[in-house]
């Protein structure tokens, strides 16, 4: 092979490698940036954040993955994202609607509420007809084993916040679960859970995740939605 041909081959190979690198970077960076962030603004030192977790989602590529949704505070629309921002040094009043069925925790220690104001959560549960069969139960433990009332968890490890998220009870979890996301409270059994915690005084990005191994189809249940932004893990951007 002639020298020019070899040089041309080397240049082409080099460009292919560089192109693959750029494509990979743009693909992942672009993919992350496509995920919207829901911005919450505080009032009187407090901010209200609303999430829901569903047995499935309305994405085109991974519709069978369990997933969180974040409610836009202005339009009240459910956004398929797990990125939201809150002000620093603010009391976050969190409401989570649990539409997914109950599942045991791998470590039942996480049945204990930790890091919330008062160390408790308040739970109400409704059946598919809208009947409230548990009303405003304020508790520090939701036993995921004996009662099967935990669907997922909401945890911000670096802030010490670990909250079991209530689900419909075992019987309702086995039947009648919401099958179209984002789920609505009409015609579906669900749990409504509220709790509060303080954001830190300084800003930063804080990872939050679920500690129930709910990544169906992945080793130990911790792959897939468990480690993908927009599904069962997310980031809370604290803005100072």
């Amino acid at each position: 092979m002639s020298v020019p041909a070899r040089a041309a081959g080397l240049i082409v190979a080099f460009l292919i490698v560089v192109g693959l690198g750029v494509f990979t970077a743009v693909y992942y960076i672009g993919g992350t940036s496509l995920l919207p962030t829901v911005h919450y603004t505080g009032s009187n030192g407090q901010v209200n954040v609303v999430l829901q977790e569903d047995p499935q989602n309305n994405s085109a590529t991974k519709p069978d993955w369990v997933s969180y949704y974040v409610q836009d505070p202005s339009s009240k629309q459910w956004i398929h994202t797990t990125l939201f921002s809150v002000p620093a040094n603010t009391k976050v009043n969190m409401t989570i609607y649990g539409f997914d069925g109950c599942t045991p925790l791998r470590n039942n220690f996480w049945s204990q509420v930790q890091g919330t104001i008062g160390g408790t959560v308040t739970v109400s549960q409704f059946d598919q007809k809208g009947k409230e069969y548990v009303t405003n139960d304020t508790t520090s433990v939701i036993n995921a084993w004996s009662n099967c009332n935990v669907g997922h968890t909401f945890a911000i490890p670096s802030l010490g916040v670990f909250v079991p998220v209530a689900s419909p009870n075992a019987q309702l979890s086995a039947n009648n679960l919401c099958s179209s996301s984002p789920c609505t409270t009409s015609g579906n059994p669900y749990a409504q859970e509220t709790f509060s915690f303080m954001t830190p005084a300084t800003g930063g990005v804080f990872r939050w995740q679920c500690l129930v191994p709910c990544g169906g189809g992945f080793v130990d249940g911790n792959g897939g939605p468990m480690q993908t932004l927009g599904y069962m893990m997310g980031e809370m951007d604290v803005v100072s």
Partner: protein
Amino acid sequence: MTSTASTASAEHAAEPRHGLRLVVPWLILSLVADLIIWFVWKPHLPPGDMSTSAQHQQFDIAVLAISGAPVLIGVIGYFLYAIVVWRAKPGDDSDGSPIHGSTKVSAAWIIGTSAIVLWLFVFGTVELIVPAGAGAGEGPSPIWQLAGKHTAVWSPGSDDMLQVQVIGQQWVWTYRYPQFGGMESSQLYLPVDTPVEFHVTSLDVIHEFWAYQLGVKADANPDVDNIAYTEPKTMGSVTVRCNELCGIWHGAMFNYGKVESQTAFEGWATGVQAKEAANGVLAALPAYALTYDPTVIPQLGQAVVKVDGITGAAGYYYPSTDPVQP
């Protein structure tokens, strides 16, 4: 002939004493380097001196550096000396003198290198045995055990061994204290001047418990009880990290612990125990065991996948030994 012999004799007489010129600076420089290592560098060597295992590791690194410094100085010194003194003269393409048959050089080399290797072997072995495994995991049946009484209840002011179970899970650490009713915490608290026996395990994939300032590093394997020892000697903060790539959030799998006085630790531990007894967490936890099968709920006596109504998200629970494949 007589003239040639006298010339060679004169050149030999003019040859400086290379050995002396090499050894004297080598001795001085080695001594200076070793003194600097011991008195200046050692106090700053990782992982510090917060526990017996950390102290031994710091000591080991310092001794190895002290052992290695003379070798390094000798090699570099000889190298520089040879370049300067025995540099080939311009136009001299002849070979150097052969050294075959020099019993003195051969013996010095064999004895010197053997002494170094044997020293490292003996020192390393002693430093593995004396600090009871040097802070590393020894598996479920440790060969070298730290002195201390195994008791059902830990008391301050005694030589009771504090048992702490370290549980890894993607991507958090928790700690169980069997001598305090099996209570569990997301924070690692330890009493100072107390022998500690860590039982390290995992509920899912392989992690590694690395309590940096304590000089403790032990694999956390599912279904395995990996035992490691240490004795905290100084109060302060401890950083716990996972040191085994365990998934996307491996880098975020860390938390902080604290070594405090024995009475303060007892107050904290009994406080957590009382709280967890009151709010039902202790009853909700499985009985303390050296390993756990996450697919079984002990209170119900059944495998998770067989419990009616407990279907798991997406209709399945995920046993570590039998993952569902996509």
